[in-house]
């Protein structure tokens, strides 16, 4: 009964979405207030229906209803409760439902908070948002219905892929989708603005917080994913330039660019056509990600079950959404160019350069991701593009970007005095060089790039702090004055400072853990030990453990420094009998200086009767998580920034607005 209710709610949601995509659009065209207002009611109803469908699926997982095919394929009665819940979105159908639910959530939020938007813009945004939902709901009902029953029901389920049985999975996909789908709203705003033919500071003030929501959620989702890969996959790596990682990274880069140029539209009304294009591209990249993950187009560790039929369906959706919006762009955007003028040295040109570099970076990742596919189609050669490509293309692009990031916030709008700016940042620059030099001496040299990037990390943190100190006139005004200024700073200011400094912190972690990583692989008998980075690891014994839905070998390793035990590491090697799949559970000792990371490998009987231990020392890796967390906090603070009042609500909502 519950699954049928869920299925029925999905069908109803499709019908509501259809109405929501047509009626307000027509109403906005005719200037009919009643028809436009329909969009808001429909948005609420659509959200409630999809929430109902989602809860129905979760309920089916909770009670292990093995008459539902989706539950059979991805759950097991013995699975821990948390993974029963998260299992609902740990598969193609369920995650698609979550995707559509978020789409409706953003529609509902516009209906709820959009009171001060011009009625026609609000109606059009809601209609476009519903149009996207229509596409995905048809896709779901036609090819990927999560509520399909199976008769006769099996006795038990096939369990969830053990790699996905991790607390990280409970939060990583929802955050990632919140980001992906958040850009849908920005996209809807862009398309609505193209239809209206008008983009003004009020539009930008609306788009900015939604871009921030998507940007923050996507960034946090990517960071959680990296963290999950770090401790679950057992290679001690946190980023592999895997196609699926790349497709989540690209909308984030595009979103970063959008975030910066939307404020130019807001303050100076320049870059309008470019901003709209970025808004379309950010969501296009999200859709592209959905397409690649679910079609089996590229090989990846993350891909869902390969199904070319679904692939063709999503490609059609992609073609309508991206192709349609870009065509609309080609038609309407030429009217949008122009705007406030500015000098060569100004905040505008700084942001222009920022956007050029970010676009180039995004394009680089796109080329690297799709190159193998196109190469294979054109020449038949199978190639793979790995970290060396990105190290030689993406990383160098980051150098000017990071330098600019430190300078940009000091540049005033319209026209800047370069000499003045330099004198303000000279201290931070010199201190960064000193820190890089110190790091080089302490670490006994090391690759030039690594030392350079440690300097950049310092530069980002220091220049952000200097800019903050500048703003509150620290040491120039009485301390009490400065404190008053500090508490009175606009939240956007805090957001920027935290985001820039957070990236600096994360860069330090990325550099340290990539360049100075140490690795030891040895076969040990109980009682033997190995040494890494000044630690001595003694393998005490290996225990056999039975978990709720797995069996496990657990190594007990004592970590010694100067013959004193300081910690015990318990890496595991699990075997999940239902999925017949082994996983490694790494044991990690986290310190500010670096992580000690131990993995119990396969028992190599050919070599000896010992246990294969892989041990890594990952310097500074914790700072990646700290840095990304600081960036996310910056994003959240900035979202909550009070929006300057644009237009007083003079008219009641239902009153018709004149058509243009």
């Amino acid at each position, binding site marked *: 009964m519950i699954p049928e209710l869920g299925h029925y709610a999905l069908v109803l949601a499709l019908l509501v979405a259809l109405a929501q995509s047509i009626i307000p659009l027509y109403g906005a065209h005719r200037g009919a207030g009643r028809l436009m207002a329909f969009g808001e009611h429909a948005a609420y109803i659509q959200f409630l229906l999809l929430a109902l469908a989602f809860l129905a699926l979760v309920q089916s997982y909770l009670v292990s209803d093995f008459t539902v095919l989706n539950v059979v394929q991805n759950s097991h009665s013995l699975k821990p409760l948390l993974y029963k819940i998260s299992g609902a979105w740990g598969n193609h159908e369920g995650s698609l439902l979550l995707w559509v639910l978020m789409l409706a959530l953003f529609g509902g939020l516009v209906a709820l908070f959009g009171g001060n938007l011009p009625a026609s813009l609000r109606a059009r945004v809601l209609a476009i948002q519903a149009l996207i939902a229509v596409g995905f709901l048809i896709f779901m009902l036609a090819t990927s219905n999560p509520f399909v029953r199976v008769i006769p029901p099996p006795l038990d389920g096939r369990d969830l892929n053990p790699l996905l049985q991790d607390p990280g999975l409970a939060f990583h996909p929802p955050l990632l989708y919140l980001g992906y789908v958040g850009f849908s709203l920005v996209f809807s705003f862009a398309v609505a603005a193209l239809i209206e033919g008008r983009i003004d500071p009020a539009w930008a003030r609306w788009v900015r917080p939604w871009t921030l929501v998507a940007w923050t959620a996507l960034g946090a989702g990517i960071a959680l994913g990296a963290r999950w890969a770090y401790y679950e996959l057992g290679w001690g790596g946190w980023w592999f330039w895997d196609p699926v990682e790349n497709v989540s990274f690209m909308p984030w880069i595009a979103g970063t660019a959008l975030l910066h140029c939307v404020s130019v539209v807001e303050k100076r009304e320049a870059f309008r*056509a470019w901003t709209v*294009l970025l808004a*379309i*591209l950010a969501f*296009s990249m999200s859709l592209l990600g959905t*397409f690649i993950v679910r*079609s*089996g*187009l*590229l*090989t990846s560790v993350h891909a869902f079950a390969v199904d*070319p039929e679904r*692939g*063709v369906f999503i*490609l059609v959706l*992609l*073609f309508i959404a*991206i*192709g349609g919006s*870009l*065509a609309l*762009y*080609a038609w309407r*955007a*030429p009217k949008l160019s122009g705007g406030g003028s500015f000098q060569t040295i100004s905040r505008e040109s700084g942001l222009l350069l920022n956007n050029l570099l970010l676009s180039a970076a995004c394009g680089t990742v796109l080329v690297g991701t*799709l190159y193998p*596919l*196109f190469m*294979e*189609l054109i020449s038949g050669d*199978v190639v793979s593009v790995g970290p060396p490509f990105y190290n030689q293309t993406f990383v160098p692009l980051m150098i000017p970007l990071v330098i600019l990031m430190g300078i940009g916030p000091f540049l005033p709008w319209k026209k800047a005095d370069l000499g003045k700016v330099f004198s303000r940042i000279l201290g931070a620059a010199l201190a960064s060089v000193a820190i890089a030099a110190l790091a080089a001496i302490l670490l006994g040299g090391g690759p030039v790039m690594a030392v350079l990037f440690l300097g950049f990390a310092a530069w980002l943190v220091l220049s952000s702090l200097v800019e903050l100190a500048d703003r509150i006139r620290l040491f120039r005004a009485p301390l009490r004055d400065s404190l008053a200024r500090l508490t009175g700073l606009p939240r956007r200011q805090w957001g920027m400072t935290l985001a820039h400094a957070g990236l600096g912190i994360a860069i330090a972690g990325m550099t340290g853990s990539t360049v100075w990583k140490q690795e030891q692989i040895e076969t040990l008998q109980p009682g033997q030990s190995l040494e890494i980075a000044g630690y001595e690891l003694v393998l005490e014994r290996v225990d056999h453990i039975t978990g709720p839905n797995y069996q496990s070998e657990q190594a007990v390793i004592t970590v010694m420094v100067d013959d004193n035990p300081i910690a015990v590491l318990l890496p595991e090697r699990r*075997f999940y009998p239902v999925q*017949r*799949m*082994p996983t490694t559970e790494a044991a990690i000792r986290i310190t500010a200086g670096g992580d000690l990371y131990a993995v119990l490998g*396969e*028992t*190599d*009987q*050919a*070599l000896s009767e010992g246990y294969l231990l892989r041990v890594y020392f990952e310097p500074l890796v914790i700072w990646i998580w700290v840095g990304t967390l600081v960036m996310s906090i910056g994003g959240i603070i900035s979202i909550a920034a009070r929006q300057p009042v644009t237009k007083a609500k003079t008219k009641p909502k239902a009153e018709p607005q004149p058509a243009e």
Partner: protein
Amino acid sequence: MRKGTKGLLFLLPSLIFVAAAVGFFLGLDPDRDPRAIPSPLVDHQAPEISLPAVEGLGLPGIEPAMLKGAPVTVVNLWASWCAPCRIEHPQLMDLAEEPGVRMLGIDYRDQPAAAVRFLKELGNPFEAVGFDQEGRAGIDWGITGVPETFFLDSEGRVRHRHTGPIDADTLKNNILPRVREIGGLTG
């Protein structure tokens, strides 16, 4: 900028997207396997191998002559310590039932006693099993890991290679048609 060029500039994103979409469509060809790793051995003579028998197994080792003659010779690299090999094994048993197929195993970096136990427990699909203690054959054949399977024609040329375990679907939809094609057998 002239008006025409400017319009073209705004059209550019659409054009790039359409080109990409055509590529995506071609890439969705169901016969295309993005996981396929081409082996330099494909369509070349298989490397000569001569491996001793596994002690206590009661099967002969591998002689170079065994790689030719049968319509299809299947060379499977496996080990008792390899968990995916366990998953793959039932499919190898099915494959051995196919007419015209000669199954050869290479026991990769294993212990004889464990290997004997493995085949006793799961059944033996092989006519002969060579014992590759140092992993020499693995290097000669350029494997990425165990299990890995090579399909040779009657001339001893490598015609197909499969990396990783062969699951039931792959056997039915991918491997068996290839085996019949190599052996010149239909149905």
